[in-house]
């Protein structure tokens, strides 16, 4: 053997194992497992597996629509309320009582930690809501006793009692009529838990597990959760609605946004939350970028108790002088819709005929002169230097507004040095003249935009940062709550919107969008304008 032959032999020894390895890396034709599974790269770990006790979007995404059902749910483009665990319901004429008629064939999850012996019935509904409503309930204090969503809609003030009529009929009694109550019951937070499971936990003296090892009626059941790593869901085969065609659904917890992008590009994730580098994703034929305008609004609010913004003409002038398009292009990088009213266009109560405030400097100057400020004035504008879903960069937005208002002679001082806590505290005391804020709705009922933001009662509690209290407006939104007739409600809300655009307690600026990227092989609706994602109607081919 010559030197050359020895070398060739040695080279073969080097390359052989690699060839074996690489040939083993070739994907097999049999891809049945990946065809039946979806990997969703989410942005964080859930705090809990019970949506009742949380508000964070990450937790709602991971749990609400996957593990649970509600009595009723929102369906379709217009977000009308549709049956879910309740096959029908009846509201009395005075709106003070709703009777739900429940489905009979709904199975709870069978898992390694619990095997149900009975179907879903009225006891489960009673248990789920009484846990929230009754402070003495054995499960009320489990996991801290805080139910933030229900506290924010003052659920316990509205609901007088819940009665079981028979195993499949349940009646909610209310202290006063509130037509947004159905929307609250249909929201992602109002899930139905299993009473039988709770009882078994009481026996074993491990009540805490109700929120960490969930049992629900939803399309998927929990198989394994490793905090910070993944959540593995298996399909609930006995699901009362159409069971999912998937075999498993995996949440791959990837907090870094470059990490999620890499996994999407490398094909390790089928769907990713909150993608970056939109152009890169759009340039790949096998990937799809989706966006949905969320039920939120970023706005510029005036303190209507303090001069000069107690003068409606000044407010109108500012509204005309703010160039919203420039803000959307710069601050939101065109990833938002311009707000024409407080409500986003996807709400059923949205009314196109409400006049939007258009950008018009000369008209604004005229109004300023009429208001007695031909030479302008100095004002402060508060902006929170923290990124929010409805406003990614309030400080930049404030600077743009500063430049806009200079054109009509107003010089703006930007106040952005406070931290979140003291910022909100001083706002509720009304120490600001104007502020950049926003609101994310919990459910699609339009009232969720009006009452918390602009009613007199929330002006008193300090939640209404404009301190605008208009009796006509309050009457309108109260009347809208007292009827369940959608056409009537729409009429009331449209008048309310017109009133806002005349009185300008605030200038709605933008409705930001929520983005998501997916591989083409994943079919079906995932995103909705409010609340969490939903994998129940998603398939893969």
């Amino acid at each position, binding site marked *: 053997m010559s030197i050359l032959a020895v070398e060739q032999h040695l080279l073969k020894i080097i390359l052989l194992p690699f060839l074996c390895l690489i040939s083993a890396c070739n994907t*097999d034709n049999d891809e049945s497992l990946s065809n039946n599974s979806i990997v969703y790269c989410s942005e964080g770990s859930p705090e809990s597996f019970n949506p009742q006790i949380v508000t964070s979007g990450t937790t709602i995404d991971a749990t609400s629509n996957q593990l649970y059902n509600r009595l009723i749910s929102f369906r379709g483009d217009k977000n009308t309320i549709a049956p879910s665990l309740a096959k029908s319901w009846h509201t009395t004429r005075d709106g003070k009582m709703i009777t739900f008629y429940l489905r009979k064939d709904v199975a709870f999850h069978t898992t390694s930690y619990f095997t149900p012996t009975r179907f879903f019935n009225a006891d489960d509904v009673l248990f789920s809501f009484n846990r929230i409503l009754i402070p003495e309930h054995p499960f009320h204090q489990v996991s801290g006793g805080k139910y933030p969503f229900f506290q924010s809609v003052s659920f316990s003030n509205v609901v007088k009692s819940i009665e079981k009529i028979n195993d499949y009929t349940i009646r909610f009694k209310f202290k006063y009529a509130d037509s947004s109550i159905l929307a609250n019951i249909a929201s992602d937070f109002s899930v139905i838990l299993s009473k039988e499971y709770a009882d078994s936990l009481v026996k074993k003296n491990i009540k805490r597990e109700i929120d960490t090892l969930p049992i629900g009626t939803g399309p998927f059941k929990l198989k394994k959760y490793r905090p910070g790593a993944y959540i593995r869901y298996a399909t609930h085969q006995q699901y009362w609605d159409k069971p999912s065609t998937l075999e498993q659904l995996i949440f791959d917890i990837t907090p870094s946004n470059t990490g999620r992008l890499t996994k999407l590009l*490398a094909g390790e994730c089928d769907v990713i939350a909150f993608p970056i580098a939109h152009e890169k994703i759009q340039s790949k034929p096998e990937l799809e970028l989706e966006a949905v305008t969320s039920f939120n609004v970023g706005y510029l609010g005036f303190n209507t108790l303090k001069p000069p913004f107690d003068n409606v003409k000044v407010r109108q002038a500012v509204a005309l002088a703010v160039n919203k398009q420039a803000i959307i292009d710069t601050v939101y990088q065109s990833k938002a819709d311009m707000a024409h009213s407080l409500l986003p266009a996807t709400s059923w109560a949205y009314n196109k005929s409400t006049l939007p405030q258009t950008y018009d400097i000369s008209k604004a100057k005229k109004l300023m002169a009429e208001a007695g400020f031909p030479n302008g004035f100095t004002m402060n504008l508060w902006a929170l230097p923290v990124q929010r879903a409805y406003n990614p960069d309030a400080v930049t937005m404030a600077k743009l507004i500063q430049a806009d208002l200079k054109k009509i002679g107003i010089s703006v001082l930007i106040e952005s040095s406070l931290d979140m806590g003291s910022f909100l505290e001083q706002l509720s005391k009304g120490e600001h003249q104007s502020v950049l804020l926003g609101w994310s709705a919990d459910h699609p009922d339009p009232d969720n935009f009006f009452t918390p933001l602009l009613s007199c009662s929330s002006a008193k509690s300090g939640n209404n940062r404009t301190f605008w209290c208009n009796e006509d407006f309050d009457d309108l939104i109260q009347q809208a709550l007292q009827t369940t007739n959608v056409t009537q409600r729409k009429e009331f809300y449209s008048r309310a919107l017109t009133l806002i655009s005349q009185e300008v307690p605030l200038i709605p600026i933008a409705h930001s969008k929520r983005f998501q990227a997916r591989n083409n092989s994943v079919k079906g609706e995932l995103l909705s304008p409010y609340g969490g994602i939903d994998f129940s109607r998603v398939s893969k081919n």
Partner: protein
Amino acid sequence: MLTFTLRRLNLFIFTIFLLTLLSFSLSFLFPGEQLINISGQINATPEQLIILAEQYQSHNNIFQQYFTYVNHLFSGDLGISMASQLSISSEIISVLPATIELTLVALFIAMVLGIPIGFIAAINHRKATDNIILSISMIGYSIPVFWLGLLAILIFSIQLGWLPSAGQISLLFEIEQVTGIQFIDILLSESPYKWQAFRDASAHIFLPACVIALAPATIFVRLARTAMMDVLDSQYIRAAKAKGLSFSQLIYHHAIRNAMVHVIRDVGLQFANLVTIAMVTEVIFSWPGIGRWLIESIFQRDHTAILGGLLALSSFIFIVHIITDFIYAALNPLARDSRHGT
């Protein structure tokens, strides 16, 4: 052999003593209460703190405290993690095997690549092949590992889409953790997709292992080259040549075996280097090993985890050193009698 073993044991005990002394003093040097640093009980009530102080003998003198600490260590109690409130020893047991697996595969790749290439270079001493191999290995040694890792992901995962970029195995496969070494766990599992899982795990380990292997491989190239050149220069090779052995007989029967002995000795030394590189690589490739866990603990200021992790990692490296020393001694009888440590 007995003296050799005793000498190694002696060294082991002394090193462990120094390591525990270091981690014990670090618990004082880290910010915060020493008792909390050492136990990780950040949410302890005053009553629990009293019990803890009792357990760690905090009121006694420092020697007593150190002694109690070592006692805790040897009974497997490294405290609980300040971040997750889980026992550190169980966390280490769940992350260490992944690192062992990754470094072993990387070591294998580095040896399989580096040693034969080094031999080829030695055979072609001072020829073009030798020069090319030496320059390439110099470049390979100089590339920073984090940059190489990102580059590998960019090319092989994103551009070409051949290999996955993160994790140990695709989450699609449900493999129960038994030993922690993924390949063994897959073989033990009862999943119907066993072989698919095995292939997937191989694809996942390939890229990070190659990235880790590069620097040690270049060192092996140079070690193997020097060792081979020494052997080829030696008297017995000349004698064999004079007896009329063919070149291949010379290389396969005499040179390689003798050159390998010298290389093996340095494998152990390379292991520490390998683990350091692996720690950075684990972060880049989201590999669920002890390196990533330790770096995350540093970010989270999880002092108890840092103490426990350092101790576990350094003892692990040290144990590997000793094992390679034994292998070397078994292969090379001369080493057993050498008076001084190698």
